[in-house]
């Protein structure tokens, strides 16, 4: 909770569907590490998928975040801490004709935040397989606590997802994605403080939030061994946050066994209407969460994958080993480091070591 850990990526995974075929039987294992801004998060993740019948496939995932935090929020208003979050995800996929349906359950647990999420989704190929249309819904029940008091509150979440993938030409694929998130409950952080004329006071947030995200992307086969990709996302919500995300990437085979990926991501955000670095008086809603401020971020990433296609043990068909690295840079326009009075900025790094195999 103190790091505002969210379930959205896992939730979205429940609706990452490709119609007309079941996902392949596959295992995945990853070690991940984030380091920057006084925060270190690392841990393992495991995933397995297996056909039960010709039309039904089951999947399970286990994910761990071990967090050690002395972030700017923590060092200016609390004490450094360590905690662990575990997440378990179970899913079933059912293929019926050209329609793929999926159901999932996700449980996330940490010392001061528990969450259960139930998801349903459906994807359908239409127009001779030229188009895949998908839609999904998920409901979440969260419990928010504070470890040093008996504070407890709840959050209800509803996610609605629509997706469209379209074959444009023999070498160009386009997608459009929309997601609405409706939240109702305690949406603040029970540990964080706002400031009024320099004095720290508890944050006060609205108890509802509705957001809309619309994304468009394209993937172009540039040559037999090279693909280019681009993506844009627009985001807006009832807290008056507006954000734009731009992503560019290139993937290229380097011989028979190696694949390289390079990517760049730019994100810019106008902050929430009730955010202030230092309020001039008391207001109904007050936040000093830097994630709700005005800021830009840049991310430069690279991946190198080694493919193994034969001689694998345990009946494994083929496997990939991937090393991934991202460099992230955040520059805040109206969030001050109160230790020195300068606008806050930080950089961080993300490492991922990943193994996947099909069987």
């Amino acid at each position, binding site marked *: 909770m103190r790091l505002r850990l969210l379930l959205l990526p896992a939730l979205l995974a429940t609706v990452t569907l*490709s119609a007309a075929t079941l996902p392949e039987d596959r295992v995945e294992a990853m070690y991940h590490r984030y380091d920057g801004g006084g925060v270190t998060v690392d841990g393992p993740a495991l995933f397995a998928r297996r056909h039960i019948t010709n039309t039904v496939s089951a999947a399970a995932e286990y994910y761990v975040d071990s967090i050690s935090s002395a972030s700017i929020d923590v060092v200016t208003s609390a004490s450094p801490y360590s905690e662990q979050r575990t997440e378990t995800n179970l899913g079933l996929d059912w293929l019926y004709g050209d329609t793929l349906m999926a159901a999932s359950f996700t449980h996330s647990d940490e010392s001061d935040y528990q969450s259960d999420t139930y998801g349903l*989704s459906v994807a359908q190929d239409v127009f001779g397989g030229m188009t895949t249309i998908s839609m999904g819904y998920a409901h979440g029940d969260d419990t928010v606590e504070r470890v040093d008091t008996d504070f407890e509150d709840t959050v209800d979440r509803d996610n609605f997802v629509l997706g469209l993938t379209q074959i444009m030409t023999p070498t160009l694929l386009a*997608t459009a994605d929309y997601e609405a998130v409706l939240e109702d409950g305690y949406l603040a952080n029970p540990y964080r403080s706002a400031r009024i004329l320099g004095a720290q006071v508890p944050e006060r947030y609205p108890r509802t939030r509705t957001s809309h995200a619309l994304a468009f*992307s394209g993937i172009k086969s540039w040559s037999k061994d090279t693909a280019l990709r681009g993506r844009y*996302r627009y985001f807006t919500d009832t807290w008056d946050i507006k954000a734009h995300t731009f992503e560019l990437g290139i*993937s290229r085979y380097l011989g028979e066994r190696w694949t390289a990926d390079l990517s760049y991501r730019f994100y810019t955000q106008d902050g929430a209407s009730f955010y202030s670095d230092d309020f001039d008086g008391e207001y109904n809603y007050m936040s000093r969460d830097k994630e709700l401020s005005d800021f830009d971020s840049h991310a430069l990433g690279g991946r190198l994958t080694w493919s193994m296609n034969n001689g694998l043990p345990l009946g494994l068909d083929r496997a990939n080993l991937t090393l991934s690295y991202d460099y992230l840079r955040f520059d805040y326009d109206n969030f001050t480091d109160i230790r020195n009075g300068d606008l806050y900025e930080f950089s961080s790094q993300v490492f991922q070591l990943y193994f996947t195999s099909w069987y």
Partner: protein
Amino acid sequence: MKRLCLSFIAVLCFAGCTRVEPWVMPYEREALADPIMSTSRDPMLDRHRAHVFDVREGARGATVSQGGGCGCN
């Protein structure tokens, strides 16, 4: 939101009743079926990367393609 969902369902039903001739035939989709054309070749890596941004930014949602495949299987 309800209106948007109903419109989407109507489009889905309409699509099921309509005969549209594919302008890219299945035998022309070899390049699209290549793994490097996948919207998410390494799903776990991409979900974790999206999670890293989600917890540090105000925006959320539509982070990975919901559409998925290219209809080339």
